[in-house]
């Protein structure tokens, strides 16, 4: 009787069995990733030795032996990093020679910029179109008026007083804002059906890509006065900024061209069949697809541009690097560890910006890939 209705209904799922031994946990992980073979073990030991050789002196230099506070070079003579130097020069590093009473203007512009960029960078925030209009049209005008003091009744601050991180950011933002649209135009020109337009665009792009930016900057500072009508002069900083923008528009054009080539021919033909005009085709069909494909390339070009803003130091302008380099010449702070501290600090700032940008580009890339997979 008991054998006949021996139905058994399990009320709950069977608890999962423990994984086989030696698969999970830190020790198997170590065995798999660090000691899987004799060669692997030797590599691990060599890397550990290398780390033991480099890391402790670095930590000692940056933290333990470092001088954090002090008024002059006397605190920085025992070999550690001289962070006190950075503290003493922080206003110079951030604003250059911008008059202290007017520094609030730089801060206001920075806040306005962040207010425009952050919502643009977060995909979920709506109203991207107005955001772009603000950043490309309203913000540059406001920033120009506030920073120079022209047109708003504030004290005029000529650009030779500008310097430090502030100039680095102004140059980079200016370069990015100009080089992207110019690059798109050049890329379209290079793919145009009209031979003259095509040759001119290709020639322009290859000319800039074939020469170093340093040479171009020198050219701008030496040749431009010869090329312009006698008596016409140009602000030195503006000249450098335009140079960087035009130089990078050539690189941007090649990135965008890659995107244009990745769009299937059917998209062009389909939009033509719908009777869209050239501008409509570009604006509604081609560019939205082409630009999203090459977002990583565009961001990489932005990063390269950002790093290369430091080259304006070579023609005597004081960006973040130039300012720090000239600050190391201060005899009050003459100490063997000051240059190293200054350059490590500058490197850290550049690194934060560039690494942040590259992480953001990876984030956007992943997002787009997810969208593409779903289709």
């Amino acid at each position: 009787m008991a054998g006949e209705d021996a139905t058994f209904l399990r009320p709950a799922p069977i608890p999962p069995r423990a994984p086989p031994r030696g698969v999970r946990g830190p020790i198997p992980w170590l065995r798999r990733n660090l000691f899987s073979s004799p060669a692997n073990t030797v590599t691990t030991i060599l890397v550990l030795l290398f780390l033991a050789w480099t890391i402790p002196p670095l930590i000692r230099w940056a933290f333990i032996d470092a001088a954090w506070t002090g008024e002059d070079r006397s605190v920085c003579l025992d070999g550690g990093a001289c962070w006190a130097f950075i503290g003493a020069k922080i206003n110079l590093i951030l604003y250059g020679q911008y008059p202290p009473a007017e520094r609030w203007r730089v801060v206001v512009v920075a806040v306005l910029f962040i207010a425009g960029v952050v919502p643009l960078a977060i995909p979920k925030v709506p109203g991207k179109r107005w955001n772009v209009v603000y950043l490309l049209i309203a913000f540059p005008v406001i920033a120009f008026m506030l920073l120079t003091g022209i047109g708003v009744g504030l004290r005029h601050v000529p650009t030779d007083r500008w310097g430090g991180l502030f100039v680095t950011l102004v140059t980079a933002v200016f370069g990015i804002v100009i080089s992207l649209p110019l690059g798109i135009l050049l890329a379209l020109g290079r793919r145009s059906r009209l031979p003259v337009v095509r040759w001119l665009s290709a020639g322009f792009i290859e000319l800039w890509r074939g020469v170093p930016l340093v040479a171009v900057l020198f050219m701008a500072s030496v040749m431009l006065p010869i090329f312009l009508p006698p008596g016409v002069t140009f602000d030195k900083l503006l000249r450098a900024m335009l140079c960087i923008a035009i130089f990078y528009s050539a690189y941007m054009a090649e990135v965008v061209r890659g995107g244009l080539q990745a769009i299937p021919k059917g998209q062009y033909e389909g939009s033509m069949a719908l009777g869209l005009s050239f501008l409509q085709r570009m604006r509604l069909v081609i560019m939205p697809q082409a630009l999203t494909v090459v977002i990583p390339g565009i961001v990489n070009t932005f990063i390269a541009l950002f790093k290369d803003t430091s080259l304006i130091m070579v023609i005597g302008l004081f960006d973040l690097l130039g300012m720090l380099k000239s600050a190391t010449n201060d005899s009050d702070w003459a100490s063997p560890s000051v240059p190293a501290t200054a350059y490590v600090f500058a490197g850290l700032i550049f690194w934060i910006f560039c690494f942040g940008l590259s992480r953001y580009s990876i984030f956007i890339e992943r997002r787009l890939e997810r969208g593409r997979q779903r289709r």
Partner: protein
Amino acid sequence: MPFAGLLNDTRVRAFVLQLLAFAGVVAFVAWIVSNTGANLDRLGMGIDFGFLDDRAGFNIVQTPIPYTNDSTYFRAFLVGLVNTLIVSALGIVLATIVGFAIGIGRLSSNWLLARLCTVYVETIRNVPLLLQVVFWFEAVLVLLPRPQAAITLPFGANINNRGLYLPAPAAEPALWAVAIALLLAIVATVVLARWARRRQAATGKPFPIWTVGAALILLGPLVVFLLAGSPVRWEVPVFQRLNFTGGIVIIPELAALLVALSLYTAAFIAEVVRAGVLAVPRGQLEAAGAIGLPPGLTMRKVVIPQALRVITPPLTNQYLNLIKNSSLAVAIGYPDLVGVFKNTVLNQTGRAIEVIGITMAVYLFISLVTALAMNLFNARVALRER
């Protein structure tokens, strides 16, 4: 409505548009030329390359070809050009070696090594090259001792804050025998390689051409070298009064620029190499395993040939970037083309158009030649489709 008809005719529109674009560019160039003419007239200068024959009158810290301050500007230009080529060539070799090592290291199954290489790439790539050049020159190399307290290295070499001093080889007459032996060995290897390829194609029997060739080229000249009684004299740097003389000197400017350029470009090359190796489809590796190829052979015969196809074009770009970036020398005073020619010569002569024209032309020429050479190599490794 003939006019509207013309306006809507795409051929007419294309023609007019191109004409306008062309006219615009011509007008712009003409405007610049006329401005330039007016400015030059005002300064009382014409375009004249005659200044190249004048006495330069300045010294250069690194002169790979004979140069004194009595030499001409043209000679100074050549010195700058050779200096640019020296740092570019050394930089390309070093960056390739380090870059390939780091790129392959990032793909290692060893977690620690892969992470270390990733940290290297992410750190170096995100810091401006100019900053790195200045860092090596002003923050690291200044820590070296003065010549009096130089750090002695093996074989009579030493390092101090004036540079790295290496013994210089000086040839003696019997060296030509070694050169002939080397030439013969190379010819023999080429002939042997041809024969080996033909035999393998005909009979399928392989021949260890790499080992035999390497042995021929290395050992042959070495034996002759020893038989001739080592016909090379090493000129060791000697300390005299304030500094070392003799031997080969690598000045700190060159060292800083070279280290910064190679380490920076290596980070980018590492990414190129990694992408290239990852681009080889997994099926290729599995197939190689299935036909029983050992890992070394899989790498040599399956992975590398396919990865090279992907690597070559971006690698070319990195080489070109390195050559162009070598102009950052101007920031630390290494006498490269831009430093010597554009800085010093331009300041002395004021011949802006000629000097900048020549410099730009040289860079464009170097870029084009490198691109051409790499395109030839690319054509060799590219996929041969039937």
